[in-house]
Each structure stands twice: as C-alpha cells, then as structure tokens.
C-alpha cells in the first residue's frame, strides 16, 4: 500500500553526505586559512609597527640622539604584545633597545629586513629609511597567540558544530523512524478498516439471510396453521353446501304456500351465498399455505395477460388506465393459469385500492435471470431462468413496516370489510408453490411494484385452448353406475352419498381403506372409486386407489380433499392423470366431475409423467 508519507530517497542521502563532506572540508580550509591569515596579519601588523618606529626614530638614529631614540622604543611598552624593540644603525649594530621582560636581549646584530614566526613570537626587522636613504634597522618582537590555543578555539567550535550535527542527525533518524512507524500504522489501520468493512458486509448479509429465513419460517408456520384451519373449514363447508344443495333440490316439490316459499328461498339463498364466500376464503387460505392443488400447464404469460386486460378494465373502473408492456420472445412458464390469473387480479385490486383518485396500472412481462448470489439470499429459490410479471401502480405506496408484513395473511391496511388480507398472501403462496419468487418494491407516495418470477417451462406442451369451464350438469342419471365413496368424516360422507344417489348412481360407502377393500371384494361391479385423500386406518386415498387398481385395473378414481397432501400432489402440483375435486364442491360440480371421469378414456389414466 503506498501512501503519502515522508520518504527519504537515495538521492537525498547522497546530497546530505556530500553537503556534510563539503562543509567539513570548508571548515578545515577555513581553519587553515584563518591560521595562515592570522600569521600573515600579525606579521604585517608588526612590520607596520616597526615602520612607524623606524620613521619616528629615523632622525634620532641619523644624528645619534640616543635619548630620543630610547624614548621612542620605550613608548612601545604601551603595546602589551611587544616583547622587545630595538634600533640598529646602518652597520647593524644596536643603537637602543627595550625589553618587557628583564634579562631578555634583542639580537646583537641585524643585517637585513626579515620576518618570521617562531616560539609564539613574531620577529621582524624593518629598515629605517628616510627619503630612500637607509639609516639603520628596527627590530620588533611581538607575542602571537599560540597555535595550540588557536586550534583549541577552533576545536571548541568544531565540537559545538559536531554536537549540533549529531543532534540534527538523531532528529532526522528519529523522524525517519517515526515516518516508517506511521506508514506501518496507517497500513494496519487500512487493513483493519478493510477487515471491519468485510465483517460488516458479511454481518449484514447474514442478517438479511437470517431475516429472510425467519420470514419464511414465519410464513411456513402461518401457512401450516391456516392450511389446517382451511382443511377443517372445507369439510364443514362441504357439509353445509352439500346440505343446502340437497335442501334446495328436495324443497322443489314441497308446498309451503307462497309466502313461506319466498322466505325459504330467500334464507336458502343467503345461506348458500355465505357458504360460497366462505369457500372462496378458504381457497385463498389454502393458496397462501401452498396446500392447494395446482394444475400446472405450459402457459404463455403474454397471452394470459392480454386475455385479462378487458376483465381488468371492467374491474378497476374508468379512472385507472391499464398499460401492458409485453416483451417479445417470452419463455413459457409452467404454472397453474387459474391461480396466475387470480394473482394478477389480486394485485390489480390492491393497486386500485392504492389509487383512490385514479392512476395508472402497468403490467410488464420480461425474461429474467436470477443469479446465484441473489438466489442464495432466499430459502428454496434456485438460480436460473425465470419469466417476470411485474404489476406496478403509481398509488400511495407502502412504508417499510407495512412492506415487511404485506405478504402475511389477514394483514390489511384497508378499512374493515374492504379486504380480507389474503390477496398478497395468495400471490406469495402460489408463486412459491410454483417454484418462483415474489418481490415487492414500494415507497410512500411513489407507488408499488410487485414482481413475480415464475420458472421457465422446461417441457413444451401446447397450452389448452381455453380452460375448460365446469361442464353443465347432465340432467338425469347417467346409467346407474356403481360408485364406492370412502370418506372418514361421516357427515361429509353422508352429504356426498346423498348427492350421488340423487344423481342416480348406485352408491356404496366406507370410512377407511381396509373396509373399502373388503366391500370391493363383495361387489365386483364398482365403476368408480370416490375417495378422500386423507384417510385413517393406515392407508391414504392414493394407496387405496393403487391397491384397488392392482385388482381392477380399469376402475376409475376421483379424489377429493380439503387440501392437497403429498399423496396426490408432488411439488405442489397435481400428478398428471389424477382426477381431483376440491372440497367444498357443489352438486353441479360433483355431477360434472363424476361424469367426466367415468367417460374419460382408460389409457391416460395412471399415466406418469416425470417433470
């Protein structure tokens, strides 16, 4: 990691050393020059002093005035560095002299002009000249500062300079060490920051995953609960609806009088309507709990959406514009078209309620790819190819808290009586059961988008032209076939038996598998087995049917159930070739389904298609 810390380069060190060497040499040169210069200077000074004396004393020397000459040399006592002074005549003989230290003597004789430094003294001899005429010589001896002392002085300076240099060097080195330490510290801090960041990201990922897991576990628990409730309700509703149907058909022949008949019909209508609405609710509960039996087909989403547009226009009203954005080349999806229509309808109704002043509803389709990273965040979601159906409104939107609970059953923000809280639950349950994925995006004031991802269909099978509507009930018995009814719930069984008998079939009944098999052995002419999927006695409907088929391969089987279980539903989908009528069913629905199964060709029955 490179950071902008002080960094000393090689060039810097070379420059610093070169500068230090230069300064050292310069210092030595300065000392030598200073010493030399001092010598020259002191000699020069002494010569000048000698010349002054020579000039002053020239006449005294010339005319042998010793007294005056002595005064001149004695005056040099005022110059403390002068040790000895003497005047010599032309022949070099001493004329007068002065010595500071008694006992010292000047040279007895001088011959010529000289100057030299020896023993810390400078000795000079200068001529006494007057107008170019040589009259004699002057000798001067002066003290000079000893070389040792001079060098000592320089030495002291050198020591001070050296100490300063050492302090500077120490500072520079410690600065450098500090810089290195800082760099290291910064690097470690960066590493820590990066590690911390990674930890935080991981922690956030984990939190998201845990939240998603918790949410799905919660949904699963709610699903099981609602599924159980729905199952029981369906059985009860089957009793109610069956009984009401029987009552209505039988009452046709009663003579109650006009007023009583009117009241009877009115109450019966009310009861049937209530039961119907209850049945619709339980269907939605089952859808959320993913317990509803799906009947998947290869569906082209664009066609389905296009087909729904007119229905949606009627349902949503004039204030809401519907726009569809359908991508071309959309893959087929493997799903239950009825449930997909319900899901879209539920979303459209929610959108309408979110746009009380009107607005725009957009339905988009697109091919989509869910990658591993995204898929890993959701339990049971697999990466791969999906078809996206997105329903968007520009309504009020939802805040975060609302969004978190949006899929939960019975959660609603609508005013009492305006919603069941099961719309989005149906969507969530259905899409999950189909192996898909649902995601809501919403912001208060900016509307809501619900994205439904459905897995791409891997088997291509022609879409059925139209979902076959429940055929009209064929009036009258259809030939007196024998039907074996197996149902553990007595009242439900009674209701079914009564309906079938009313339809003109011969009916046998049993409450569990083993007794049904016994019955079968004594009644070989049974044409159809109508069995509940969930049975007591250690044998479920599917196992019973398989056992019967072993003996009577051509026998027809119609299942019924309050909700689907693994017996006939795998991966949330009805096994192919299995006929099923969901509770609660009406007289007409049962009649039609029985007829359809009885008249179905034998060869497709029992066919097993592996997906």
């Amino acid at each position, binding site marked *: 990691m490179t950071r902008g810390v002080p960094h000393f380069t090689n060039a810097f060190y070379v420059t610093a050393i070169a500068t230090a060497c230069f300064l050292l040499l310069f210092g030595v040169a300065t000392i030598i020059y200073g010493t030399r210069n001092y010598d020259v200077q002191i000699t020069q000074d002494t010569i000048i002093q000698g010349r002054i004396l020579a000039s002053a004393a*020239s006449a*005294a020397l*010339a*005319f042998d*005035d010793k007294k*005056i000459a002595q005064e001149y040399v004695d005056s040099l006592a005022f110059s403390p560095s002068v040790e000895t002074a003497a005047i010599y*005549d032309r022949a070099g*003989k001493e004329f007068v002299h002065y010595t500071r230290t008694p006992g010292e003597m000047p040279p007895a004789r001088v011959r010529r002009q000289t100057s030299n430094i020896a023993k810390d003294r400078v000795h000079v001899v200068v001529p006494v000249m007057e*107008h*170019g005429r040589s009259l004699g010589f002057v000798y001067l001896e002066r003290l000079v500062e000893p070389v040792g002392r001079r060098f000592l002085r320089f030495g002291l300076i050198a020591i001070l300079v050296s100490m300063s240099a050492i302090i500077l060097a120490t500072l520079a080195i410690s600065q450098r060490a500090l810089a290195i330490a800082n760099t290291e510290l910064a690097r470690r801090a960066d590493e820590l920051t990066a590690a911390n960041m990674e930890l935080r990201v991981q922690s956030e990922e984990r939190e998201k995953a845990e939240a998603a897991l918790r949410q799905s576990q919660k949904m699963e628990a709610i699903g099981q609960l609602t599924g159980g409730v729905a199952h029981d309700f369906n059985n009860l509703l089957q009793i109610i609806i069956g009984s009401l149907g029987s009552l209505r058909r039988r009452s046709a022949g009663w003579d109650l009088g006009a007023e009583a008949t009117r009241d009877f019909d009115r109450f019966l209508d009310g009861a049937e309507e209530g039961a119907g609405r209850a049945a619709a609710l339980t269907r939605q509960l089952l859808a959320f709990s993913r317990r509803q039996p799906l009947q998947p087909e290869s569906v082209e989403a664009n066609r389905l959406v296009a087909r729904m547009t007119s229905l949606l226009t009627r349902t949503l009203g004039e204030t809401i514009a519907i726009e569809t954005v359908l991508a071309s080349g959309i893959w087929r999806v493997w799903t239950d078209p009825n449930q997909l229509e319900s899901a879209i309808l539920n979303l459209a109704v929610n959108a309408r309620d979110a746009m009380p002043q009107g607005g725009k509803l957009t339905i988009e389709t697109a091919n989509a790819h869910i990658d591993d990273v995204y898929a890993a965040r959701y339990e049971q979601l697999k990466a791969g190819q999906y078809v996206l159906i997105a329903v968007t409104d520009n309504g009020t939107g939802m805040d975060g808290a609302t969004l978190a609970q949006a899929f939960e059953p019975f959660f609603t923000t609508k005013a009492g009586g305006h919603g069941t809280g099961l719309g989005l639950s149906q969507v969530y349950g259905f899409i999950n059961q189909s192996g898909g994925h649902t995601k809501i995006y919403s912001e208060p004031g900016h509307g809501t988008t619900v994205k439904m991802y459905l897995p791409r269909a891997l088997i291509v099978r022609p879409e059925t032209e139209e979902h076959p509507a429940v055929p009209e009930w064929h009036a009258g018995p259809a030939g007196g076939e024998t039907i074996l009814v197996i149902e553990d719930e007595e009242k439900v069984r009674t209701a079914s038996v009564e309906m079938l008998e009313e339809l003109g079939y011969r009916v046998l009944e049993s409450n569990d598998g083993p007794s049904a098999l016994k019955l079968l052995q004594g009644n070989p002419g049974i044409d159809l087995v109508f069995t509940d999927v969930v049975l007591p006695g250690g044998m479920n409907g599917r196992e019973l049917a398989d056992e019967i088929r072993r003996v009577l391969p051509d026998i027809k089987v119609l299942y019924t159930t309050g909700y689907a279980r693994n017996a006939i539903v795998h991966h949330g989908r009805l096994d192919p070739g299995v006929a099923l009528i969901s509770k609660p069913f009406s007289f007409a629905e049962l009649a039609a389904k029985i007829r359809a199964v009885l008249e179905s060709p034998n060869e497709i029955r029992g066919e097993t298609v592996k997906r």
Partner: protein
Amino acid sequence: MPPNRAGFLLVAAAGALADLAVSCPVLAGPAQARALEAAYLFKLTPFVDWPANVFASPADPFRLCVVGEDPFGASLDLAGQGQSTGHHPIIILRLKSATPADHCQLMFVAGDAQFVSQSLSAVSGTPVLTVTDGQTGDKGVVNFVVGENRVQLQIDQQGALKNHLSVSSKLLDVAAPPEGNAP
C-alpha cells in the same frame, strides 16, 4: 699602499669612529668631531625638502659645497662616496667663495666670522641649506655644536624659511635648542 686600499681603511676607520660615537658618544677629540660632521652633512639631506625647481632635471646632481677653508679633507670625500639623495647623485664642490650662481643645494661654510657672515648673506634667500659649526657669530640654517660630548644640531627655522627650505620635524626633534632660546 694603493690609494683605494688606503681609502677603504680610512672609511673603515671613519666607520669605526662613527660606531664609537654612536655606541659611546663621548668624542675623543676634534678629528672625530669633524668626521662625524662630515657624515652628518650627508645625513641631513633626507630631512630637508628643497623647492622643486632647484634641479633642472632629475639627473642633475646634488651639489654639496664646502666654502672657504675645508676642515674635512678626504674624510668628506670618503663619507660622500656613492651617496645620493633621491635620484640625484651627490657631488662635492670646494669653493673659495659663495655665490648663488654656484647652485649649491647644501653649503658648509667655514672660516672666520666675517667670511661666514658674507658667505651666508651671499646665498641668503636662495634655496641653499647653509651649515656652519661656529660657536659664535652668524650661523647657518644648521649649525653643528659640540656639547654633551657629542655633535649636536642647531636648526634656524627662520633661516630655513628664508631660504625656501622645509626642515623635517623629526630633525627639529633631535635638534639642540639654539642659544638664547632656552627657557
């Protein structure tokens, strides 16, 4: 003995006498005083400035004239051998009488008081350094007196000014006070 050898010995003797005089100023007799005076004549020139026009050219000689009775004899010649002042070689002229036409720069006048007086008057006001050794009577700008056992100089500054001469203060410093000037 060749004359030059004799001359050398005489110079050596004069030098020895001079040395003696310096180291021991006690004069042994009149002869030594004469020799000293001869040497002093030459030593005077550096301490006196003559007007620039006394020399027609730089190569002109410096004329040292002895007027009247020559008291020095050969000692003067010896002392003056090879002497010069500035660029001017010193030549020695011996004259009977003094006139400005002689163009002497230095004139030693010896003789009786009258002669001396006449001679001094003759060159008075001209750039001539007059030297006498009289104890009485008229004296030149420089007058040698023997006293305190040595030859001393008396300087007549008025006379020097009159003759357009400038005498160095150094010379005045070592000069003996003129008679009558003593405080």
